[in-house]
């Protein structure tokens, strides 16, 4: 099917031949973010295994954030952008994907990669500072953690498009922040995705801030999800601290993409509980009251409270979740406390498939320097 044959293709003709176009109404988000926890929704319908898994991963995710923060204070990480408070998004995004699907995380989303099964030490390589990426993206179907904002979004579109062209049943899920939605790459990626009907889901974690800049200085839109209609894709708004709601909305979007329905933009409303990174001083731009209000809407507690109240979680379950998390943390701590072994000569190894003569000369220079250093030691 060529683009021109797609339903709803916008081909203006002079009046009176003006053609019917895509109906905008179904693309618009609801007024209020979709919620499940604390509402009348019947979560007994949901797979209990899923609820348990969500819970265990949230507990583990929170512990991971704490451990990574602690390692940063001990100088074991160069920097850590914590996702504390955003665990519901991070975990749900990981769980909605099939093994063959691809994840496109930003620098803040190491937890999502870990929840997907990536070894935490590998996930943290970038932030420890021994190399830029600690894993083989193709092996894990996890793109490198992306630092230049929103630049990973067109990658996700291209990959999803390529998979579809090859006839593979692959969906790409890309994460971006509220601040990232202002970048041109966000716009271009969403537009390409919609025109190509690529199987992509864009998840905006709207955590209220881009470093110090509050959302009101970032956009005047009714919501970020409203941007979707301008690309001709559905926009969905969800409570980002409600793991069940996020999982449900993302699952639907993934299924829609898988069935050839094209991309979806999901805005998850959440909050960054910690400072932007350990290097940031959040007291300069926000008050405690706001943080406190969000702490009371904590994603881990929300789920725990609800599952407990509904009799789906008991003390043993909680304990077991916490023990698993502690185990992960202890292992992470132990392994991160060992210095990584690095070979400086690797600086020249991966720039090109074959070293240029220029790089060979430079490598020889470094080799000589290292040898001399060795000698004087």
């Amino acid at each position, binding site marked *: 099917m*060529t*683009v021109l044959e797609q339903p709803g293709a916008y081909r203006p003709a002079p009046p009176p031949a003006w053609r019917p176009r895509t109906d905008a109404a179904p693309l618009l988000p609801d007024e209020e973010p979709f919620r499940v926890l604390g509402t009348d929704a019947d979560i007994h319908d949901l797979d209990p295994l899923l609820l348990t898994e969500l819970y265990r991963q949230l507990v583990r995710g929170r512990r991971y954030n704490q451990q990574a923060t602690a390692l940063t204070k001990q100088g074991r990480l160069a920097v850590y952008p914590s996702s504390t408070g955003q665990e519901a998004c991070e975990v749900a995004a990981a769980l909605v994907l099939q093994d063959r699907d691809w994840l496109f995380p930003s620098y803040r989303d190491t937890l999502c990669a870990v929840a997907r099964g990536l070894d935490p030490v590998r996930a943290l390589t970038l932030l420890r500072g021994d*190399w*830029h*990426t600690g894993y*083989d*993206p*193709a*092996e894990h179907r996890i*793109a*490198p953690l992306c630092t*230049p904002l929103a*630049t990973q*979004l*067109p*990658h*996700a*579109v*291209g*990959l*999803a*498009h*390529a*998979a579809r*062209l*090859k006839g593979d049943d692959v969906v*790409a899920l890309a994460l971006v922040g509220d601040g990232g939605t202002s970048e*041109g*790459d966000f*716009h*271009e*990626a969403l*537009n*390409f995705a919609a*025109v190509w009907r690529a199987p992509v889901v864009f998840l905006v974690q709207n955590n209220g801030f881009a470093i110090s800049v509050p959302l009101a200085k970032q956009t005047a839109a009714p919501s970020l999800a409203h941007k979707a209609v301008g690309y001709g894709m559905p926009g969905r708004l969800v409570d980002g601290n409600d793991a069940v709601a996020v999982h449900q909305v993302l699952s639907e979007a993934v299924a829609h993409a898988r069935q050839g329905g094209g991309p979806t933009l999901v805005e998850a409303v959440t909050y960054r509980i910690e400072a932007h990174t350990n290097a940031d001083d959040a007291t300069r731009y926000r008050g405690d009251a706001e943080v406190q209000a969000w702490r009371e809407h904590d994603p881990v507690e929300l789920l725990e409270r609800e599952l407990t109240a509904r009799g789906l979680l008991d003390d043993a379950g909680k304990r077991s979740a916490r023990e698993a998390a502690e185990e992960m943390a202890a292992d992470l701590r132990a392994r991160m406390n060992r210095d990584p072994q690095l070979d400086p000569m*690797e600086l020249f*190894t*991966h*720039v*090109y*498939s074959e070293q*240029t*003569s*220029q790089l060979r000369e430079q490598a020889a220079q470094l080799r000589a320097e290292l040898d001399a250093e060795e000698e004087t030691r």
Partner: protein
Amino acid sequence: MTAVAAEAATAPARKPATMAQALNRALRDAMAEDPAVHLLGEDVGALGGVFRITDGLAKEFGEDRCTDTPLAEAGILGTAVGMAMYGLRPVVEMQFDAFAYPAFEQLISHVSRMRNRTRGAMPLPITVRVPYGGGIGGVEHHSDSSEAYYIATPGLHVVTPATVPDAYGLLRAAIASDDPVVVLEPKRLYWSKDDWNPEAPETVPPIGRAAVRRTGTSATLVTYGPSVPVCLEAAEAARAEGWDLEVVDLRSLVPFDDETVCASVRRTGRAVVVHEATGFGGPGGEIAARIGERCFHYLDAPVLRVTGFDIPYPAPMLERHHLPGVDRILDAVGRLQWESGWTEGSAR
């Protein structure tokens, strides 16, 4: 039958073809050989590109293989990155030199670094075709020589053909490369013709090898792309002045062929670097510096540069004053201190 006649009989017929045709042919052959090769760009489909380099390819291979994208260069290159991550070999067309600038973040921060970032796990075999340079009477933003930006970005290969066979060969080599390659296509040579046999295309030259286009003994003109024919013309004109100039066509700016350049300069003892790009911070500085570093004791005169002025590219009616022409090259050759008492070509 003489040996020459025998060769002529078995060698396939060579006939004139334009550089545009050779590039088109290179794309077609690459697409036919490898289904992973996909073209992306503005107007590359039904129109065949504003320079017709992709003419007929959408028809032959379908719109999914030769795709008119939305009008957004960062989006084009960014999606190409994703396609390459999934195993395709995207060939991206930037419509004009200056319209590649919106894609610079994708190019610098991702295309050039993905392999290194992932310790070699994620190579990006992307070819970025950029029609570049002036001399075509184009209005603002249609005549930039932007190679300085590309060569200063480690992780990219940068090639630029000056002849019809090289256009074919370098583009094939670029597409075949597992590294990202920027192919700078000198747009004013698109309609230049060469005898060339498209049925038996010349061997694809390895990326990184310069070609000596004319041998000479007095001095070396080091150049590339659109300035190669100008230098050859200058070399012809120089005979009248008694100079026998060698002309080196770099073909590849990254990697750089130090060997060929230095061998030539060491023999002639004098060098002029010629390009259309702005002089200050342009490739000529790098080239002259390398020659200075590596051939110092062979030089009988400073390495001079003849380049575009350090100004924004001029409007069509004034561009001829900006472009390095034969006279300006000969003038520089004349300043190579012929009377200074050193003997020509002598090593010191």
